[in-house]
């Protein structure tokens, strides 16, 4: 898709743009490097959008906010590459423990980042397939003795070569010692050892719950050295997400609509778990439908009318 290709170009340009913005590059020097990169890397009408690795990194960089996450991913990537080089030189090689804990509210980008990580790990040769299997308690925990192990192993089998992403993982510790969730955890830990070369586990969930979960299971702590915090999006970031989402679909917000959206987001931000990209998408998708209804009575809507989301399209939406 064209959009992808553009993302990548933006990501490369981003680096040049950032230098210009920081005052580290003059405009003529920036133009010269843009020219060089478009000569060597990607022709202006790119048909070769770069390697899957570059694509994945560009996709990551293209996500709104998530500064720390992005930095950490770049660090992990660098670490893997250096470990591989060290291995070739016969130097002591730190075994790569890439299992991770993702902490954050729903809709803060955890699954999206996990999916991109899968591609990156595959391209770096850490995983053979790099796909993502997303599960929750109900997919892992059974109803009778033996059932849980069977269900958990089934999911592990599907995830081999890729990432097993356990959402709301803390719920596995629910119900205490006698709960089958405990059995599932044991099963997962065993799989981590058995398939240490071709399976990555990501346990995700709300911040407090995950911290409590790790405290209650000290054995897990050391097995998950990478812990990433996914902060709630700020109001500005949510607005940017909305605008990117719309721009990708050839819509835009009128100033009035942007005000209204900001107002609604402010209201919901005071509620818990609401710094949430999914919520923004829901609001926007609804507004797109309401715009369609509003325009359907017009015989000849103009191009601009077809693109504009107006305040009325957002009004009356109960955003919660």
């Amino acid at each position, binding site marked *: 898709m064209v959009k992808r290709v553009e993302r990548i170009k933006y990501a490369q340009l981003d680096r040049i743009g950032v230098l210009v*913005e920081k005052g580290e590059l*003059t405009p*003529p020097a920036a*133009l010269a490097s843009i020219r060089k990169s478009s000569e060597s890397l990607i022709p*202006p009408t790119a048909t070769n959008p770069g390697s899957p690795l570059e694509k994945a990194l560009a996709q990551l960089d293209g996500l709104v906010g998530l500064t720390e996450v992005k930095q950490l991913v770049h660090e992990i990537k660098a670490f893997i590459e250096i470990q591989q080089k060290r291995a070739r030189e016969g130097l002591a090689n730190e075994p790569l423990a890439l299992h991770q804990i993702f902490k954050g509210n729903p809709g803060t980008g955890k699954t999206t980042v996990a999916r991109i990580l899968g591609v990156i790990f595959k391209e770096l040769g850490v995983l053979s397939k790099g796909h993502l299997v997303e599960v929750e308690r109900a997919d892992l925990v059974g109803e009778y003795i033996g059932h849980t192990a069977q269900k958990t192993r089934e999911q592990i089998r599907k995830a081999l070569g890729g990432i097993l992403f356990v959402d709301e993982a803390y719920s596995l510790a629910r119900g205490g010692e006698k709960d089958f969730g405990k059995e599932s955890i044991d099963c997962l830990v065993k799989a981590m050892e058995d398939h240490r070369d071709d399976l990555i586990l990501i346990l995700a969930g709300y911040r407090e719950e995950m911290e409590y979960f790790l405290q209650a299971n000290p054995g897990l702590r050391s097995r998950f050295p990478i812990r990433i915090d996914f902060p709630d999006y700020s109001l500005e970031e949510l*607005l940017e997400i909305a605008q990117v989402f719309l721009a990708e679909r050839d819509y835009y917000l*009128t100033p009035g609509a942007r005000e209204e959206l900001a107002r609604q987001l402010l209201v919901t931000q005071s509620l818990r778990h609401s710094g949430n990209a999914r919520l923004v998408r829901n609001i926007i998708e609804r507004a797109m439908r309401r715009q369609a209804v509003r325009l359907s009575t017009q015989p000849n809507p103009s191009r*601009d009318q077809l693109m504009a989301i107006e305040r009325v399209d957002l009004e009356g939406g109960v955003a919660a």
Partner: protein
Amino acid sequence: MRDCLIVGKTHAGKTLFVLNFAQYLGLDNVDLIFKYPNGLIEKKTYSIAKARRELVGPIPHTTRALQTVSIDLPVGKGVKRCFLTDTSGLIDHIHSDVEVRRAIAQTLGAIREADLILHLVDAAAVGVSDAPTALGEVDYQVAQIAQMRGGYAILANKMDLPGAVSGLAKLKLELPGHRLFPISALYKRGFREVKSYVQHLLC
């Protein structure tokens, strides 16, 4: 191809050109879509006269966003809708104001994406080497990049001012081999040639 990017050094007359060119093509009111460097997008409707008052600057770095106007060019029996995008002006050095640098970064991004580029140069200033709008390194770089695109022309602007004729001669020497149109954005001179060039390329 339907998008045409207007670039050049700051104060070269880009904004005035876009507005007066739109008026020349028959528009009295324009819907301008502003895309700010921080990602905000908004649309405002102006009369050309009001837009000239508010958007054309007495000082450099007036424009701080991508400002797009849609125009209808006659093609065959019908018209074709195209988009002219005005940009924040370029400079050779690093500006001390981060807002200006951010706006310039946005322009550079747009240049990277553009297919058809109209490059405005202040012909009257070209002869005066220390004028801020005189021909600079950034103009050479724009020309280098732009000639790899679908279309590229240099518009030698402010031909109504003294010194512009010798400036134009110098421009031809300094940036040879490109299509060049002498114009006056202020008095809408040379617009016919620009129109037929754009028309030809956009179809």
